[in-house]
């Protein structure tokens, strides 16, 4: 217990003194996850919106696969990206392994199914409720997907935040493809794992607290968004009730 309270006190000291090594890791984590979320959202929003309104043979199989990817462990994604980027892999010529780019790629691939599946659900629900009216106004499938996604932008903002939460809190993929190199590819989650195994509990706890704080901020933003949207627009469309977990 004493060791825990001592570690917690030292962790808080590291946070409030803005310890440079801690801040560097936090900044790198944020930057990796922001880049990965932006890339995944750019692709996932388009794919999800298109899937939400389109009907084609094999769609059910595609959706089942997409939903399966939601549950893929991050270490598996890390392993696949490792194999792709390793010297003998198809993308080995890029030389990205154990780099910032590799971590971004891994996290982007990890959250892409989340963004696509949630966007698909939001747009498909909206299509079921309102697609016919847009169709009667002359909107084809492509335009409907864009218009419905735009109309459900607050719900999709929640999806974006959920994706960021998933990216920043994962550890397996970035550990495998980033290598946890001090000063280069060490991020919050990999640092927590390493420092704990080394017995440097204050730094691990400090990083854990920062991570928790970030997730708390994200959840608060989600709650505020939900409340603001409900007040402003009425609760006419479903906003997914998502909670982020560190």
């Amino acid at each position, binding site marked *: 217990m004493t060791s825990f309270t001592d570690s917690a006190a030292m962790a808080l000291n590291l946070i409030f003194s803005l310890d440079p090594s801690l801040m560097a890791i936090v900044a790198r984590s944020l930057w990796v996850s922001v880049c990965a979320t932006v890339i995944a959202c750019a692709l996932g929003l388009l794919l999800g919106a298109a899937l939400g309104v389109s009907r084609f043979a094999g769609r059910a199989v595609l959706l089942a696969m997409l939903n399966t990817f939601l549950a893929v462990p991050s270490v598996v994604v890390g392993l696949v990206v490792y194999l792709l980027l390793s010297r003998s892999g198809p993308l080995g010529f890029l030389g990205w392994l154990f780099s910032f780019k590799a971590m971004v790629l891994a996290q982007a691939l990890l959250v892409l199914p989340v963004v696509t599946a949630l966007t698909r659900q939001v747009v498909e629900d909206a299509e079921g*409720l*309102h697609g*016919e*009216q*847009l*169709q*009667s*106004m*002359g*909107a084809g499938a492509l*335009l409907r997907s864009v*218009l419905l996604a*735009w*109309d459900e*932008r607050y719900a999709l903002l929640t999806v974006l935040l959920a994706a960021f939460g998933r990216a920043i809190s994962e550890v397996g993929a970035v550990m495998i493809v980033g290598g946890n190199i001090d000063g280069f590819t060490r991020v919050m989650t990999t640092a927590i794992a390493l420092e704990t195994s080394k017995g440097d509990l204050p730094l691990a706890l400090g990083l854990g607290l920062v991570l928790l704080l970030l997730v708390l901020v994200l959840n608060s933003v989600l709650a505020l968004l939900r409340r603001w949207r409900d007040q*402003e*627009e*009425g609760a*006419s469309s479903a906003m997914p009730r998502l909670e982020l977990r560190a």
Partner: protein
Amino acid sequence: MTPVFALEQANVRFGMGARTLHALCDIDLQIAPGERVAFIGANGCGKSTLLRVLHGLLRTSSGLLRRDESLCQAMVFQRPYLMRMSAQNNVALGLWLRGQKWSSAQWLAMDALQSVGMAEHALRAARKLSGGQQQRVALARAWATRPRVLLLDEPTSSLDPHAKREVEALIQHLAEHDPSMTLVFASHNLGQVKRLASRVVYLEQGRVLADLPVQEFFAAGALAQRYREAHSFVKGDLV
């Protein structure tokens, strides 16, 4: 005169095998330009399905549908879908989707909102408007496209009595403003049917049981003799 719509032995089925639902059965119907046709019948009789077939939102499973494709059609639904934007932009969107430039669509949208008495609400968020006001914006969105055929699917059924009267008066005003426009609507409100329609089509279980001019339909004696089910409906027995 070429009919706006002509249905011959049209059927609409949903599902397959034992679970097949016959939404429309052997419908023969012709609607001439300028007619005011009301579809009436109990819930689930096929009024909305028939409107959707006429508008091209649903395909017939068998039979023939001839539509004058050169005529601009617009449809207003029971619960209007207005996007998260201003009333004016919602109306402009309808025009933009039909090929108008956004800038001119804005002007035409304002014009249409004026004609439904909603000009002062043009810049308000559409979803913050009351149910009646939203339905008026939806009517403006349809009206802005200058439709030759206006289809209305129970346009007042989700409104309170006051809004009902307002929206009905507006539909009447729009219909009188352009007598050559064909008006086809589904309604449960028989008073409204009397006031707006020139012809009544009574549907039951997907079949047309009566297709009569409005005065004849509501002439109780004639209806009772020829169409017992429709007579019962008018009396309120089936509602």
